[in-house]
């Protein structure tokens, strides 16, 4: 079924053993939108992202990227090139420099010319403010720098959208700030993003829509301000305000 959305998820189910972690998730994402998924741990937020690029294949349901059904396509590697992924643990390649990390997808997957790839890599590193760290290895970078390299690596592939899987949950508040600033500027440049995070400040100031999940279901979704100020479910309010208490409203 063709769709006009950039990404459309229909009735997504996933089980880990006997436990059903996703019980029928449906939502869509349009070009240029930023949607933020929040919810308690273990509700399957990250599983959705992993399902989308089939690092963990979904059990049931359909996902469309533009009008291609990507849950069953054989060309999953082509799909993955079009969808960036930013990991909680950064997932940088330890044996490559920051520049090498950004370049490898270009040279080995997109078969780009080395010189061209290097130029693009430097451009993307500059974009996340790490031009001076191009020759550093991941273990020589701070967590915030490493995650920004991760974002640059995703950006360099020129994806149609980027998935962020709790990009800041292993960082301290200061480093979180520098990563969020990069993400915010991306959102402003019109990048399509689907973000799993606990950063309410970010969600509130950047998200076009907030999706609150619990127990494998979407409890409520809507404009962030509406969910904060006038939620339909008591649980939404409880959870969101707990997070605000814990993490603050963010620096923005």
């Amino acid at each position: 079924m063709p769709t006009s959305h950039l990404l459309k998820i229909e009735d997504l189910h996933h089980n880990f053993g006997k436990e059903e972690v996703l019980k029928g998730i449906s939502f869509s994402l349009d070009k240029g939108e930023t949607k933020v998924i929040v919810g308690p741990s273990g509700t399957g937020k990250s599983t959705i992202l992993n399902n989308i690029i089939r690092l963990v294949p979904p059990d049931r349901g359909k996902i469309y990227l533009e009008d291609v059904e990507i849950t069953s396509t054989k060309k999953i590697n082509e799909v993955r090139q079009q969808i960036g992924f930013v990991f909680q643990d950064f997932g940088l390649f330890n044996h490559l420099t920051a520049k090498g990390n950004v370049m490898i997808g270009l040279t080995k997957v997109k078969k780009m010319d080395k010189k061209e790839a290097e130029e693009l890599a430097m451009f993307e590193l500059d974009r996340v403010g790490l031009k001076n760290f191009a020759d550093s290895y991941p273990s020589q970078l701070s967590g915030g720098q490493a995650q920004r390299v991760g974002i640059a690596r995703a950006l360099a592939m020129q994806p149609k959208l980027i998935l962020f899987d709790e990009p800041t949950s292993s960082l301290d508040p200061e480093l979180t700030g520098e990563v969020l600033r990069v993400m915010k500027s991306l959102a402003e440049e019109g990048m399509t993003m689907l973000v799993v995070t606990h950063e309410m400040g970010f969600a509130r100031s950047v998200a076009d829509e907030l999706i609150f999940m619990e127990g494998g279901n979407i409890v409520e979704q809507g404009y962030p301000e509406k969910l904060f100020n006038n939620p339909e479910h008591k649980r939404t309010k409880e959870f969101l305000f707990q997070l605000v208490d814990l993490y603050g409203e963010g620096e923005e």
Partner: protein
Amino acid sequence: MILLLINYGLPAMGLRIPIFTAAVVGIGLRSSAYQSQIYRGAIQSVGGSQMKAAMSLGMSKLTAFTHIIAPQAIRIAIPPVTNESAIVLKDTSLAFTIGVVELVRQGDYFIATSNAPMTIYLTVAAIYFVLTTTINLALSFFEKKYQIPGIGIEGGHSDAY
């Protein structure tokens, strides 16, 4: 044991091979079993998140293995491989049991004509020492050369200062 099996077993099954070949195959088989475990361990210790990250860029499993997993795994494998190389070198003396004239046997021949066992055996030992040291130094050089900055304990080599 493998050496004896290959040297006497294969001809019994109708396949005649020279003793030198039998020795090479026998020692090779044993060592490859050990080395396969070394590499298996090294590959596993690179970790699943590296593979996940590679696949998220759209790499095929083969590309991910050759460009992401293997370069890291080989670095991890260098120290145990150094060990294994020294063991293989010393294992060559076992070829003596099936009649190959290797270092120890050659030493015996000299002893038979010169009647100076201590001198000859010490010389043989010295030759083994030079060979193992050379291999260790060479692999240690590679280990340092391809070390990833910031990973592992700096200077944690056998020849550390």
